[in-house]
């Protein structure tokens, strides 16, 4: 008859060893060739390091779009899915691919998953990129990253160019390298039907107006003085509040306003036809690749002259007077139907029927499952690291001589005393400064794991303290070494004591894993953000995500209870554990 601990301890040790080993090898591998340029064409898709299945998917990312059918490229039409978006640090730079940074959250109409459910990446910038890639004979590889991290990511060498409405301003031009403008946008004022008095920007004086924070709109309204400005992170919330009556008007970038506002005209949104401001958009090219800048510029200028760019913009309903002037095109009136805009408006009309709503939620499931899987992977691996390292830290703190014990205390206090968010930023964006570049997945697991190790160490310390010291003496008197006594006598008893708090921490970690979205991973919470902003549905989607989190945690709670009960088999009576 073998005590469950024997099996458990073997399993834990084995897993801990394997994880520690693989982290070590990975970290070393990544340190040894940071950003090494691969010029071997055959290596283009197989370069990815093997442990991270995210990378493998990314390596598979093929070309999308109808334009790539020119025959000379052999790749099949591969569809993008959200899982395709990853860190290109794992997809090495190569002259065969063009890596570009985008943020799918709020990416409409620049970049988004097609609403036809095909999982294809579409958007007006996506179409421009695809055409550029076709002419460069390079394969487009998108990289998901938070919008405000687009430029830092570019500087870190995660991709070759940053997209998605990068504004050409003198301030920006001083620090980054822009292409020629491919679009000139203005600002769009929208109000609600109940405000018949608002018919131009001048009318919003004394009104409450929603803008994106740190935007041109904000500066403009602030200059007007007498305007009550409300700032938002996403346009969806702004339109929601306009409809709910919390705002009198919103002032957003034109493309975004079109795509988030047009579908909601039925809810009372009213577009004001007025040309406000002009902002030029250009792609930002990696400063180290001046030849790429020249090539892209040549292509863009040709696309402008040939009308190809105009056709794309018209398809998306974005052709406007400002762009016409920039391109030197006298014809402001669109020549073609805005088919994409119309399709979008048709598609995203607020759903009323229960059945239709249900169908939409069902269609969310594949994305949610992908997000949930990543959440689980990150959480479980991080927890294994935390439990293994925490055990070592606690053992050192309790049983090692004082200089070592002090180091352990120091680690625990520093890690516990600083925010995990800062630790993640530090590991992902800070460490490359000293040559340690970790992929987002590894950085996320290591960051969360190192953080939680401090808490697990304290749990274990409490567990050690809960085992009578006479147990150690008994073990030593039998000729065991201290380590043998800890391993076979003390730790198994401590394990039972710490199981409930460790389970508690795992549930907590499961939710804290949403923090890794700041380092470009699309896990469950990020998925929620993507879907909610796309369909203006924070309510139903939110409940759905909450339920998934709950379901993810429950099996572990049950497993822990079961183990606890098994481990308590030797105790005289444990009524509170029998449940």
């Amino acid at each position, binding site marked *: 008859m073998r005590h469950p601990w024997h099996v458990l301890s073997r399993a834990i040790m084995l897993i801990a060893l394997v994880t520690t080993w693989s982290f070590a090898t990975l970290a070393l591998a990544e340190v040894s060739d940071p950003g090494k340029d691969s010029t071997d064409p055959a290596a283009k898709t197989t370069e990815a390091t093997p442990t991270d299945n995210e990378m493998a998917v990314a390596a598979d990312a093929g070309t999308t779009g109808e334009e790539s059918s020119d025959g000379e490229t052999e790749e099949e039409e591969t569809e993008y899915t959200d899982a395709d978006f990853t860190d290109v640090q794992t997809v090495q730079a190569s002259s065969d691919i063009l890596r570009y940074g985008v943020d799918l959250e709020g990416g409409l109409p620049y970049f988004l998953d097609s609403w036809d459910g095909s999982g294809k990446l579409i958007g007006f910038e996506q179409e421009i990129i695809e055409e550029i890639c076709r002419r460069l004979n390079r394969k487009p590889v998108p990289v998901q990253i938070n919008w405000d991290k687009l430029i830092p990511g570019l500087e870190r060498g995660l991709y070759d160019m940053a997209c998605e409405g990068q504004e050409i301003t003198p301030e920006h031009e001083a620090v980054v390298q822009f292409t020629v403008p491919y679009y000139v946008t203005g600002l769009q004022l929208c109000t609600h039907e109940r405000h018949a008095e608002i018919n131009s920007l001048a009318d919003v004086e004394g009104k409450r107006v929603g803008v994106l924070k740190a935007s041109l709109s904000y500066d403009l309204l602030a200059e007007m003085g007498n305007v009550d400005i409300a700032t938002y992170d996403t346009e969806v919330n702004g339109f929601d509040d306009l409809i709910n009556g919390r705002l009198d008007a919103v002032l957003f970038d034109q493309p975004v306003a079109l795509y988030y506002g047009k579908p909601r005209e039925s809810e009372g949104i009213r577009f004001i036809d007025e040309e406000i401001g002009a902002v030029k958009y250009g792609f930002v090219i990696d400063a180290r690749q001046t030849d790429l800048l020249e090539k892209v510029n040549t292509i863009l200028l040709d696309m402008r002259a040939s009308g190809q760019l105009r056709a794309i913009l018209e398809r998306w309903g974005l052709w406007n007077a400002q762009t016409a002037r920039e391109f030197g095109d006298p014809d402001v009136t669109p020549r073609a139907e805005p088919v994409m805009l119309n399709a979008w408006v048709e598609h995203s009309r607020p759903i009323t029927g229960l059945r239709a709503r249900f169908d939409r939620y069902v269609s969310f499931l594949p994305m949610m499952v992908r997000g949930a899987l990543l959440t689980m992977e990150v959480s479980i691996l991080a927890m294994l690291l935390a439990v293994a390292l925490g055990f070592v830290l606690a053992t050192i703190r309790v049983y090692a001589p004082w200089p070592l014990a002090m180091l352990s205390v120091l680690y625990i206090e520093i890690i516990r005393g600083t925010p995990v968010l800062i630790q993640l930023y530090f590991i992902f964006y800070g460490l490359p400064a000293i040559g340690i570049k970790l992929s987002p997945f590894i950085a996320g697991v290591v960051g969360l794991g190192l953080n939680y190790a401090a808490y697990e160490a304290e749990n274990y310390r409490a567990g050690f303290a809960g085992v009578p010291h006479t147990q150690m003496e008994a073990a030593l*008197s039998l000729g065991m070494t201290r380590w043998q006594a800890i391993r076979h006598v003390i730790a*198994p008893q401590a394990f039972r004591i710490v199981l409930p708090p460790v389970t508690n921490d795992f549930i907590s970690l499961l939710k804290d894993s949403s923090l890794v979205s700041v380092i470009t991973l699309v896990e469950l919470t990020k998925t929620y953000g993507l879907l909610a902003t796309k369909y203006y549905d924070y309510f139903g989607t939110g409940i759905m995500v909450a339920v998934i989190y709950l379901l993810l945690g429950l099996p572990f709670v049950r497993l822990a209870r079961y183990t606890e009960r098994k481990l308590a*088999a030797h105790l005289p009576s444990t009524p509170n554990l029998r449940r």
Partner: protein
Amino acid sequence: MTGPAPQPLIEVSHLWKSYDGHPVLKDISFAIEEGDLVSIIGASGCGKTTLLRCLNGMEILDAGRVTIAGVTLERTAKGKRPDRNFHQKAHALRTEVGMVFQSLNLFPHMTVRENIMLAPMIVKKINRDEAEHTANQLLEKVGLLKHRDRYPYHLSGGQQQRAAIARALAMNPKVMLYDEPTSSLDPALVEEVLEVMRELDREGMTQIVVTHEMRFARNASDYIIFMERGEIVEISDEDEIFLDPKDERTRKFLGQFVGRDF
């Protein structure tokens, strides 16, 4: 007996030990020969438990020498931290010496038999089958074979102490030390533990018992060590010390037990 006197199995000479400058053992010296059962008696706090722990290498001596079965633990440099060698010796000593404590400290997360098998398997690297075989024999000896798969918490105190003896015996010690093995037991359970010790004595095991069981001390011991305030006051034959103590202090201590049945 003919021929040269046999080398004593246990030899303690000029042993000193203090806690925080407060002396607990003062210049202790004695020797015990193989096969003897020796009881150490004395009032609480007289240093007898500390003496026993020194014999097991559980305490760091201030000064003096302890030799058991050829392993010598020695310290001369007082005040300095003991070197690595001392700890190695202490560990070596423990493999020759088995100890049973006053507190019931079987490993609660293991069955009785697993308790007995653990140390032979991990310290002596004996394989599982062999360890199990030995454990069964020892459990038979202490009368617990039928309880082999039970957990300590499900046993009586007397059964737990018998299991603890079996656990110590599994390491094949040359000496067994007992620190008040029956003090935390129900009076009705004391005898079954003492009986196991008598049985071991008959088999020739060398044993040292710190005890308050005067009757056991008198009946079973080959001789008795009486301690007071960290010193050995008297070492005498078991009858002699009870009937005719040499020292006034011994007389006073034993006087407390006058009228009791031993």
